[in-house]
């Protein structure tokens, strides 16, 4: 019967009809041979369309009947007037089918993630952290995992290091997921990290880059926030640090950097989504990166990935005065955006943060730029508001695929313009 139910569900799903709304399954117990004969007569009345899931065999053994909504009254009256006891096993068959489809989808999702990693679906923090180890295992001579610190709730902050050797080579920093609700970014990060590892030795650009430079990639930059989006609030943006004297939780990790900190492009209210925090680098998630980049001393590019809006941005966000390297950054952004659009036609706008999106103070890229990292960019990935943060997983691979050439453009430019 289970097989029949599943088959019927698949057929219904394939035809995308609702075939069984209001249908009920009745469990009927024939007490004697007469009842059995009556039930068989019921089966023969084609216009009633009663579907026997379990046939009446002998007295005392239950029979299960699926009865369409339109025949329900007639069948029930028939059973009652003949003294045949019955109970309602399934109140609404369609509801059950819908529920089952949901479960099937869910388990399919789970199945896919244990076998080979499914890049086309969204993952939990545990799945991602496990995958980081898998990536290292699969590319032991290229990729390693380092821990740069701990989150507020003591989760490890992991960074993937892509290196072909050397000692403290010039480096490119990439991060995704600093705002936890921007799920397309962590997902794109995973795909991209995998792509870097796979394409080294195959793609001439990434090979040239990695032969001279290192890449550091933090995929879950805000693990506490990310865990919270899975457990409690899908639209959570900030960290999960407790704020003294307030019932509101969290700091906007992209307003917590020491560049124009505390200005009007951020909020001093702990309850606000753009709360900058009590002081710069108050967030351990931010401080860990600051310490890493300053300690490294040779980072030439910082690319911080967000969603949504479809934009490629560069400093400044905290002031309107153009950055000294405005021309070069603007030209590079223009090229990257053009190569991105060439893949699927996705249109991006580009420019400085303050010109293109809005004034934002204390951001990652402004801090990086003011600390000597010339090639500092922020991506805002898909879409432009239709799904916003809730981008369907079917768009993960297309988004990552189109972003790849844009990232390569920037990284190649960094390679070819040492400073």
């Amino acid at each position, binding site marked *: 019967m289970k097989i029949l139910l599943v088959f019927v569900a698949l057929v219904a799903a394939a035809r*995308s009809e*609702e075939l069984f*709304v*209001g249908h009920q399954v009745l469990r009927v117990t024939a007490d004697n041979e007469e009842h059995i004969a009556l039930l068989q007569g019921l089966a023969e009345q084609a216009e009633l369309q009663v579907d026997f899931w379990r046939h009446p065999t002998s007295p005392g053994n239950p029979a299960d009947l699926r009865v369409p*909504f339109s025949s329900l009254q007639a069948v029930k009256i028939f059973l009652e007037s003949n003294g045949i006891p019955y109970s309602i096993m399934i109140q609404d068959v369609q509801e059950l089918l*819908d529920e089952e489809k949901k479960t099937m989808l869910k388990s399919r999702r789970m199945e896919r993630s244990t076998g080979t990693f499914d890049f086309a*679906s*969204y993952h939990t923090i545990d799945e991602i952290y496990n995958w980081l180890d898998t990536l290292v295992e699969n590319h032991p001579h290229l990729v390693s995992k380092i821990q740069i610190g701990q989150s507020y709730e003591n989760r490890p902050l992991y960074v993937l290091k892509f290196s072909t050797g050397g000692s403290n080579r010039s480096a490119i920093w990439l991060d995704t997921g600093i705002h936890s609700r921007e*799920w397309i970014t962590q997902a794109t990060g995973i795909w991209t990290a995998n792509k870097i590892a796979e394409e080294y030795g195959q793609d001439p650009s990434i090979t040239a880059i990695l032969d001279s430079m290192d890449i550091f990639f933090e995929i879950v930059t805000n693990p506490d926030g990310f865990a919270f*989006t*899975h457990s409690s609030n*899908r*639209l959570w*943006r900030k960290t999960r640090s407790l704020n003294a004297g307030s*019932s*509101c939780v969290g700091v*906007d990790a992209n307003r917590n950097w020491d560049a124009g900190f505390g200005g009007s492009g951020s*909020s001093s*209210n*702990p*309850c*606000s*989504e*753009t709360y900058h925090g009590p002081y710069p680098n108050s967030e351990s998630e931010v401080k860990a990166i600051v310490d890493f980049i300053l300690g490294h001393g040779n980072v030439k590019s910082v690319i911080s990935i967000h969603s949504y809006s479809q934009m490629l941005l560069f400093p400044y966000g905290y002031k309107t005065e153009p950055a000294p390297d405005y021309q070069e950054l603007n030209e590079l952004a223009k090229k990257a955006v053009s190569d991105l659009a060439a893949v699927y036609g996705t249109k991006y706008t580009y420019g400085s943060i303050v010109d293109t*999106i*809005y*004034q*934002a103070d204390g951001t990652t890229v402004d801090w990086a730029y003011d600390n000597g990292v010339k090639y500092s960019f922020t991506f805002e990935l898909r879409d432009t*508001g*239709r*799904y*916003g*943060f*809730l*981008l*369907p*997983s*079917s*768009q993960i691979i297309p988004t990552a695929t189109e972003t790849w050439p844009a990232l390569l453009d920037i990284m190649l430019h960094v390679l070819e313009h040492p400073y």
Partner: protein
Amino acid sequence: IPDSGNKYYLHFTTEDYKSGESAGSCLATVLYPKAKSPPAVSIKCTRTRDQKQIQEEDNRLYQKIRHQTKPIIGSNIPDSYGIIQPSLEPAWALAVAGSSYIMWEKSTEHLGYFMAQVKAVKQWLREDDFVEFDYTVLLHEVPTQEIISCHMRLTWLPAHPLKVKYFCASESQGLEEASGLESGSAAEVAHGREANF
């Protein structure tokens, strides 16, 4: 414009929300007066889509909703993974239209909105031909990044303007955002705004 306010000149294209097909373009001016009051808008659009086709689609949507044997009830549309259940798509589509009215009224020179998610929807069955839905929608506010929860009551019949009543509460405490009872109907908004979708 000195002593008057800021005037914006806009030229934009529109597209069908479902199919992405081009639906025409518009020229508009928006004047935000110095004194904070609703902006003065003048707008002219050229439509590329056939009125008859739009009416047919409206009727199809309407029939889809009326055809249900039980009132539509749902939550988290789209879900965390961006999935919209096919059976809930009509309710989502109406929410998009209704929310656009809320966002139209709430937008200012410095605050914009997107509809982030339908948190809950419940259909109220009516004796007449109108369809009626009760929604909790979440709006994403920029540049504040806040998520605003709005309760929306929506009534519709094809060829009639959408009727929307709403009340928005700010999720963030401490912001003295005005959260009074606001209501209105599309009939009151005489900006030439289309209630067809």
